[in-house]
């Protein structure tokens, strides 16, 4: 191991040693790319020549064929087109919700860990209060209180799942705040904000990123659950969960409505979990 290798490069090379994890990463990147360019490929004139919201009652609930490659839903909308647009919504929710929880969690965790005392006490109690409520019910409550929309769901998910991140960051801060580099920063007269965000946070964030990748998977699953319960994104916007929720009543004869969104959710969530798992191992110095 050369000393010049940075921590990031080292982690990356360790990460790549797992073929499964690499494949999962490639898969997620491909899904993200497809999601990003969804409006370009799935519209009336695109590669997938159907608008995701164009209804056609005469062709409802048709199984996959040469025209509709993944079949149609109960309104005769092309399932493939909706799956592609759904990827956009599901990933956007997963990533944004995680970003929100990362920001909130890191901020509060950092405050608690750095200052200790009454601040720590307050943040820790707040974490406990949030954890008291069953996660899904808390999200349901928030979404039902406001209007179910993309943003409500992202924010609701973000504001209910930051506790893990906060605890990680707090723990890391407690460990590193007395280390030499932190003391050096303090001795040089840096303000608290600078110490926290420039010196401590970058050194504490690695384990949190692991939990964030699980967080994305969790958020995608929760969005599916919300959609399934009828509190997901507003119609006609497609998300994998909302497609699946329609499938429930046609489960006996429209297998394609269940299989494809189910598979998409499963593979994406699994991929994020594999990535998170491998990332954790790669970060662990004892794994060498």
């Amino acid at each position: 191991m050369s000393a010049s290798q940075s921590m990031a490069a080292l982690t990356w090379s360790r990460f790549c040693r797992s073929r499964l994890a690499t494949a999962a990463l490639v898969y997620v990147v491909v899904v993200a790319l497809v999601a990003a360019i969804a409006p370009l490929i799935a519209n009336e004139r695109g590669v997938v020549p159907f608008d995701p919201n164009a209804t056609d009652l005469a062709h409802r609930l048709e199984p996959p064929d040469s025209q509709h490659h993944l079949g149609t839903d109960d309104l005769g909308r092309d399932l493939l087109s909706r799956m592609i647009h759904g990827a956009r919504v599901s990933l956007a929710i997963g990533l944004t919700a995680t970003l929100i929880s990362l920001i909130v969690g890191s901020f509060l965790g950092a405050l608690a860990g750095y200052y200790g005392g009454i601040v720590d006490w307050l943040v820790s109690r707040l974490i406990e209060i949030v954890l008291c409520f069953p996660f899904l019910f808390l999200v349901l409550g928030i979404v039902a209180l406001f209007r179910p929309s993309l943003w409500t769901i992202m924010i609701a998910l973000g504001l209910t799942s930051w506790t893990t991140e906060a605890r990680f960051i707090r723990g890391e801060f407690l460990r590193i705040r007395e280390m030499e580099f932190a003391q050096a920063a303090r001795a040089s007269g840096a303000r608290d904000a600078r110490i926290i965000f420039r010196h401590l946070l970058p050194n504490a964030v690695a384990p949190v990123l692991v939990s964030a990748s699980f967080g994305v998977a969790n958020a995608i699953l929760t969005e599916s659950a919300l959609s399934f319960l009828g509190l997901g994104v507003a119609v006609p916007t497609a998300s994998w969960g909302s497609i699946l929720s329609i499938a429930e009543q046609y489960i006996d004869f429209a297998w394609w409505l269940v299989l494809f969104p189910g598979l998409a959710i499963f593979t994406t969530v699994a991929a994020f979990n594999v990535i998170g798992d491998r990332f954790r191992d790669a970060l662990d110095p004892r794994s060498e």
Partner: protein
Amino acid sequence: MRLAEPADDLTPQSGGTLVRRLESDVVTLNPVLATSTYDRQVDNYLFTPMVYFDQNLRCIPALAEKWDISADGKIYTFRLNKNATFSDGTRVLPSDVIFTLKKIVDPEMEAAQIADGFEELDLANTRVVDDRTVAVAFKKALASQLIRFNNVLVVPEHVYGKGNFKTDFTSRAVGSGPYRLVRRVPGQEILLQLRSDYWGPKPYLQNVLFKVIIDATTAWNALKHNDIDETMISSDVWLRESRRPELVKTVDFLRFYTLNYNYVAWNERNPLFADKRVRRALGMCIDLPSIINNMYHGTARAMNGPFTPDEWAYNPAVPVLPFDPVGAKRLLNDAGWFDSKNTGVLERDGKPFKFDMYVFAGGATSLTFAQLLQEELKKIGVVMNVVTLEPALMFQRVLAGNYESAYIGWNLDPDPDQYVVFDSKSFPPRGQNVVFYSNPVADQLIEAGRAELDPSKRVKIYQQLNEVLAEDQPYTWTIQVSVKWAVSKRVKGVKIGRGWGLFTWYPGEFDWWIPRDQRIHDRPALAQVPGTKR
């Protein structure tokens, strides 16, 4: 060998257990406070109304074996069946009838569903005539009054007069019906057993077990696996399963229209919908023929107004609103809505045409309908947001008039009186004119219709009202979906009542029976002491 009756499918045999599906648990077993059709489904076994409906929804004797209506239409004199007893063995007395009526109209009881029919009750002049006769007085003569007595499920005063009427009888019942309550496990099941001392013609089934199964797919699978004997099914299940040979052997698929319809309510308190041209235009964006053919496979019919084709008040000359998006756009232009900024959205005075439509969360067909309308409206430049709401919340908001538009349905009374839903004196919170529709011509017809006691004159009044309402479009009436039911072939004697379906008319479910050799739900424990664990 023992001698036995000859077994066949035509001679009803007493005994056996029927397992019914309950789509939603009952809220209460107190029949005065019943709010849902599910409550009534169970209550019908436990209590007897003053009058039953027959297969054609005409009033026939029940607790009352005879009645007279005074010439001015204000006094209803009922003679009770002298054999009638409650399940605790006591006789049904005229005072029990008055007690029940008092509870129905007591505003504290919030018996909203039933109280509507007794707004004109004159309690001061209602009295016991003799030990089996009661005279019920009204302040105003109404043509629809007699049928309201079908909702008067009489409870015994000596039981229900003690304790808290609102909360003490949710899982207890003492009634004069043919069955008595064995047990209720909230959220799960309700078991009823035939009374050995029942005073009327005895039904055939020994036990009726209601199983609460909310999910439609689960219920259909339960029927296929013989866990239940009957369930309502969706149009899609009907289309795909009702012709499968292996199912046709074991399941009867029934289809019929009941008294209900679906509609879009446009809240006229909202300036968007105050103009009838706008309401008409929006309604013209609903492709009813396509919905009927593709979603319901032809098993639904388009509505032209508030009366179904099965009702005598229906006016066949009134046209159904056509599907015509081009005409709709023209109407909206006439009403001042233009796409002046080329945004694809119509505007008037700088305001975009944008509104919310409430639909039931979980009601898949409502959501489908709403999305179709949303897509059509988008094409003519109207933005409609679909908001799914939990049913209880949606009822609350709509009944309070606190919404913009909503896709809902009504279950109708056998009488066509429209006072509660379209008269301008019935605005929420007092009445159910949830769209705040107000037209003096309609008001006059509605009030004439309910006061007119001559049936042939009533027909004319309601046919005219049908025209007026179709012209004003306070609702966009959409469709009446026929009800599809699956009943196990083991069950015999199943008949369809006009407008009422399988249950709660007479004899209806009391005629059902199961041949002795096909009673798969009988378990020895059921015949034992109530409360024994199965």
